[in-house]
């Protein structure tokens, strides 16, 4: 028994280290392309392009469900993007609060002919379309509740331009974020069918007039941990996967797509818990089935700020949901596994997701449990348990370090030294509790998936300025808005920007 526990624990340690080495391998094989992307981003100014007549117009889709506290500020924020021609399509997905009414009142919108609405992809019935000639860029679609995927499909149907950007109603874009995404698209419009932006955690930062003015690390430990996670995932992981054309997710918070391909793949899939992964998988499959040249690209300098859940309950619900989404998609696209024509997706990205999403939490928890059991049987063997924990910690530290180096070299990180030290501290702490907690949530997500439990948990609307979370609604999936726990609040007061220090 003791030998088994020890061997199992050691095997688990090696698997954890192996997953880290795998990422390093990906970064190594793709470093040239990665460096090219970074150098191009650093030495580009977008002011000229933002005024160019050659930039293709974009329809920005903003699916909204019960976004009353935030929607106005976010629409105002989107209206001031530095971009030549675009429209903002807000899709009110049958909100039960006053989301629609505040939009109608604030922008004095009137019902009008759904002039550009076509039924290109399936979506629930449209109730009405609202416009105001004073705000020609803004279109508000009111429809029956059908979930985020359905709302996005309605947005695709209403979009009049060939490119669509999807943005969460509670995210804040940097002014030049959209033009940066579109520039990447313009480098190869035939092949760049989807471009993902870089999502950062805004908790703790100074927000003013719908913009993040000064990025800071949150004083709360949970958002700070997630800051580290996001930096690792986006700068450490997605750049590498993008360079290999193995990206499986374009974040729902901020991404750009060619509308014609979204239509060709049938749009977003209603009822899918991970619609952002689902649409990218569908695009991969469509293109690879037809042997068409394409790329799904990550644009690290197109930044979208989002607010992280700041309670364990909310975060746990979010992670369980993410895991269910991943499993749902892995199950749906399992036919792509180890089939030569699916290239990196079938041979590397999908297997990695399965190992990372399904086996990794089990390995982490069971490996730890085995070694704890082993040490309990013989307390003199405590070092072996410490080695396991240390391996977890160091692999995470290498990741954090690599991601921070990329950020420093490429984007001249504006994070303060004090915050940097805290990031390193949080990175170390992640291995000692947070990672295990995260693994538990993933296991619970797996359990939910097996039980077909589609509950989304309590969704909470969060004000950017308020610390107190206001529980809004507890909903069941399918017909609910599928999104991360919400936040938001008034970022401006009428025409006078209020500069608020979060926390």
């Amino acid at each position, binding site marked *: 028994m003791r030998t088994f526990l020890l061997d199992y624990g050691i095997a688990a340690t090696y698997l954890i280290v192996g997953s880290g080495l795998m990422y390093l391998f990906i970064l190594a094989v793709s470093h040239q392309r990665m460096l090219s992307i970074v150098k191009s981003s650093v030495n580009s100014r977008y002011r000229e392009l933002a005024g160019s007549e050659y930039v293709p117009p974009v329809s920005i889709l903003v699916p909204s469900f019960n976004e009353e506290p935030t929607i106005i500020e976010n629409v105002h924020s989107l209206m001031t993007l530095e971009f030549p021609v675009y429209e903002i399509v807000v899709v009110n997905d049958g909100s039960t609060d006053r989301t629609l009414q505040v939009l109608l009142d604030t922008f004095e919108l009137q019902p009008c002919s759904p002039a550009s609405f076509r039924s290109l992809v399936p979506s629930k019935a449209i109730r009405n379309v609202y416009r105001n000639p004073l705000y020609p860029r803004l279109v508000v679609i009111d429809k029956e509740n059908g979930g985020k995927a359905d709302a996005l499909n309605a947005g695709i149907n209403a979009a009049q331009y060939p490119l669509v950007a999807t943005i969460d109603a509670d995210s804040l874009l940097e002014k030049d974020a959209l033009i940066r995404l579109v520039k990447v698209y313009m480098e*190869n419009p035939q092949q760049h069918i989807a471009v993902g932006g870089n999502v950062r955690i805004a908790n703790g930062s100074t927000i003013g007039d719908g913009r993040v003015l000064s990025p800071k690390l949150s004083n709360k430990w949970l958002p700070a941990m997630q800051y580290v996670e996001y930096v690792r995932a986006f700068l450490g992981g997605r750049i590498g996967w993008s360079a290999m054309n193995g990206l499986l997710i374009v974040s729902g918070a901020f991404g750009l797509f060619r509308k014609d391909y979204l239509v060709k793949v049938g749009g977003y899939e209603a009822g899918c818990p991970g619609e952002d992964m689902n649409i990218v998988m569908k695009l991969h499959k469509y293109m690879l089935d037809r042997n068409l040249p394409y790329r799904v690209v990550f644009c690290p300098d197109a930044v979208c700020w989002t607010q992280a859940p700041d309670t364990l309950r909310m975060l746990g619900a979010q992670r369980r949901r993410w895991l269910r989404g991943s499993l749902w998609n892995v199950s749906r696209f399992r036919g792509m596994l180890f089939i030569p024509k699916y290239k990196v997706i079938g041979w590397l990205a999908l297997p990695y997701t399965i190992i990372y999403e399904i086996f990794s939490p089990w390995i982490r928890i069971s490996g730890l449990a085995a070694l704890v059991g082993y040490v309990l049987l013989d307390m003199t063997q405590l070092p072996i348990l410490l080695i396991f924990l240390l391996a977890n910690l160091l692999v995470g530290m290498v990741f954090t370090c690599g991601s921070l180096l990329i950020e420093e070299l490429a984007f*001249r990180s504006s994070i303060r030294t004090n915050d940097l030290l805290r990031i390193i501290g949080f990175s170390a702490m992640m291995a000692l509790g947070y990672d295990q907690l995260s693994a538990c949530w993933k296991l619970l997500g797996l359990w939910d998936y097996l039980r077909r439990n589609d509950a989304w948990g309590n969704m909470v609307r969060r004000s950017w300025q308020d610390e107190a979370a206001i529980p809004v609604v507890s909903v069941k999936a399918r017909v609910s808005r599928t999104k991360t726990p919400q936040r938001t609040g008034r970022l401006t007061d009428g025409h006078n920007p209020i500069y608020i220090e979060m926390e």
Partner: protein
Amino acid sequence: MWMEPFDQAATVLYALSLTSAGGFAALFLLRARRGDADERTRQSLEKHQDYFAYLSANIDGAEPLLPPPGQLSPIELKAIQSKLLEWIETIGGEYRGRLTALCRELGLVEQERKRLRSPKHAVRIEAAYRLGIMRAEQCTDELLQLLEQEGGESTAFVVGRSAAKCAETLDQLRRLLLHLIEYHPDAQQLIADIIASSSLDPAPLYIELLRMEDRETPVCVALIGLTGRNDPDAFGPLNRFISSECKEIRIKAAKALLQYSHMLPMERLGDLIRHSDWEIRAVAIKAIGEWQLDFDIEALNEGMADEEWWVRHYSAASLAQLGPAGYPDRAFDLSAEGGTR
């Protein structure tokens, strides 16, 4: 027995510890260096506040702008360069010319030119970018050579834009254009945008490209570049491409041609409205509304019954744009036209 894997694990841990410790050390070193450079730049900018005030006050004067008095340290020169580049990027015309002349006077162009030959790729790209801002005409050939080394990389667009800004002759612009077309044949709109950033008029070049009838990409780039312009010399070639065998060329040619709607005979416009490509029908009908053309309303009415949604959409939009003349009974009855409403 168990010590062997223990030792192995310890080795892995040592390696991971060293990697992360070395990485963090490098990170803090980089930050310290950057912080130091930023601070020195800030101090230099503060020291030369009066000089920047002089530049602001004399930017529209008749005399050339003078460099700052006295000897400048490298960090001071770098600080002044950063401020000048920032200004050059935000202004145009004569003022920009005066500032770029000052950059040459300060030796900044020569300095960046040397960096263009650096063994480090990142340095070369940064130098190219700065030379482009400074409109360093004397470096155009070197920039074009650098561009040829970039091949299909994303950085080619950075170098290409700089070369376009520096280009003095159409020959240089042609070389740039053909190179970008060869290595980035799909980036047609971005290439047109890069070419448009040149101070030269690219229209003759585009018209020349239109003669390469057997090569689809140059023709497409030329058609994109000519869209939105109003050059009568382009009218003839554009008209010819409407009957091209390549659909993409036909559509782009129609879009460009409709910019010259005042030169289009009504019969020709009628041909476009009844063209077999729905894209051409749609842009032609759209142009009638946009340009308020005095055209037979009946053709727009027919467009309302077109099998293609976009043609119906633009027919309705054009009828609406034409005002009272464009409101025959059918325009009010869009719902009967199969989903326009």
